[in-house]
């Protein structure tokens, strides 16, 4: 009988071999799907924290240009005077890049493994009972978020897709971007995908981390629904209220 690892010949698994695992404890943990899911849960938790803080900070758009620009400037000065300007900000950025990288690489490798685990699909229609839309579309909502992230950086960090971009003028840049109807729609759709991704991810992470206690288990679902809803409402409110002219110059 061929094992899954005989079928899954990636460079990583070739080193693993069909019976032997790496001796280096980190590589051995990473070679395991349970280990990779743990990494996805921890990086996902970090990304959830980022998404929440990012939203809370950006909601200052409703307090006006002075508050938002002041907040943006504060992010650059974090850690001063103990550390030079932007060092803490870059530390957080590198942490985020690492979290995104690990999350995406683990997801890609696990997806590949799962495809190999069922080389011949069911020939009749499946009737899913427990799997929901969110859990079954994680890899698509994930890809949508990753592509959106690139656009988002080009739009509001680098300014390449935003003709009116002026570095440092955070409030004006955001308003100029969201005033474009297609861009506002893109932001709204991407945040719907993000909320769907979070709905499954912020429940699933408890299982992957092994945080399971009958007393607290029902709370996990409430947490996931609340987190997804808060992020959706908060993030969508910004492009929506700008494009409809409620908030602006």
């Amino acid at each position, binding site marked *: 009988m061929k094992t899954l690892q005989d079928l899954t010949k990636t460079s990583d698994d070739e080193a693993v071999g069909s019976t032997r695992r790496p001796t280096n404890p980190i590589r051995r943990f990473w070679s395991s799907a349970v280990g990779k899911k743990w990494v996805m849960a921890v990086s996902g938790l970090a990304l959830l924290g980022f998404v929440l803080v990012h939203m809370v900070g950006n909601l200052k758009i409703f307090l006006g240009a002075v508050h938002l620009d002041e907040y943006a400037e504060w992010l650059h000065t974090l850690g001063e005077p103990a550390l030079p300007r932007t060092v803490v900000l870059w530390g957080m950025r590198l942490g985020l890049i690492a979290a995104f990288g690990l999350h995406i690489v683990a997801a890609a490798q696990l997806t590949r493994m799962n495809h190999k*685990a069922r080389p011949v699909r069911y020939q009749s229609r499946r009737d899913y009972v427990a799997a929901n839309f969110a859990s*079954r579309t994680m890899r698509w909502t994930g890809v949508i978020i990753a592509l959106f992230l690139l656009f988002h950086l080009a739009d509001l960090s680098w300014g390449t897709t935003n003709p009116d971009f002026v570095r440092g003028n955070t409030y004006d840049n955001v308003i100029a971007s969201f005033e474009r109807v297609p861009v506002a729609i893109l932001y709204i759709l991407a945040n719907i995908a993000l909320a769907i991704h979070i709905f499954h991810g912020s429940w699933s992470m408890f299982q992957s981390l092994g945080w399971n206690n009958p007393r607290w288990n029902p709370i996990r679902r409430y947490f996931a629904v609340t987190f997804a809803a808060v992020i959706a409402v908060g993030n969508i409110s910004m492009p929506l209220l700008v494009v409809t002219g409620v908030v602006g110059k």
Partner: protein
Amino acid sequence: MDLNLKVWRQAGPDAVGRFEIYPMHDVSEDMSFLELFDVLNEQLETRGEEPVAFDHDCREGICGSCAMMIDGRAHGPERGTATCQLHLRKLTDRETITVEPWRAAGFPIIKDLAVDRSALDRIVEAGGYITAPTGAARDANEILVAKQASDAAMDAAACIGCGACVAACPNGAGQLFTAAKYSHLSLLPQGQPERFTRVVSMVEEMERWFGSCTNHGECEAACPKEISVNFIAMLNRDYVKAQFKNPALSGQRH
């Protein structure tokens, strides 16, 4: 009742399979699903055709032999029921019932609906046991076990190893089976000495055959013993804990 049985026929492991439709007339709705196949096979033999190969043994839901994907659900639409205990009266709303074998890389098809589930045995061999001296059993009350702990261990021990969890999982993962076989030992005092070597060897063996768990929950819904995905969380937790355990200290209580 009358119905059409649409069954996957495949002559051998590497043969090309296809669905065949068999009209079944005047069958009793009190038949079990396997009895429906007994009737079909008698008809096929009478006509000189090859009977449908399928696994079955006890027919009372405890052996884990029967394994059919019925209308897209492992063991059919009835919750907490193996194929052998699914009765046709539960399926009266259907004109055509489609039956497929379990499909997973770890469950190669032998013939028709029969698949080779020995990968599950490999996982149990990797650590689904305790090393205990043979001889007379110790007094049952010599080791105290909390009622809740023994109940939980019994819930896990209800696993009959049918493979429905793998069959139902969109990822073809074997996590619920492995978690059940792991937990029924590791929740009890007798399972403690080998707990952390067991979790690593069982998980690593599992991953040689099956996909990875993404927490859909289809396994729990399909399980004829309704084993909870809570056991999967316990397996995951112990696998991570095992990474940081020093085996030399495993004799220490605290």
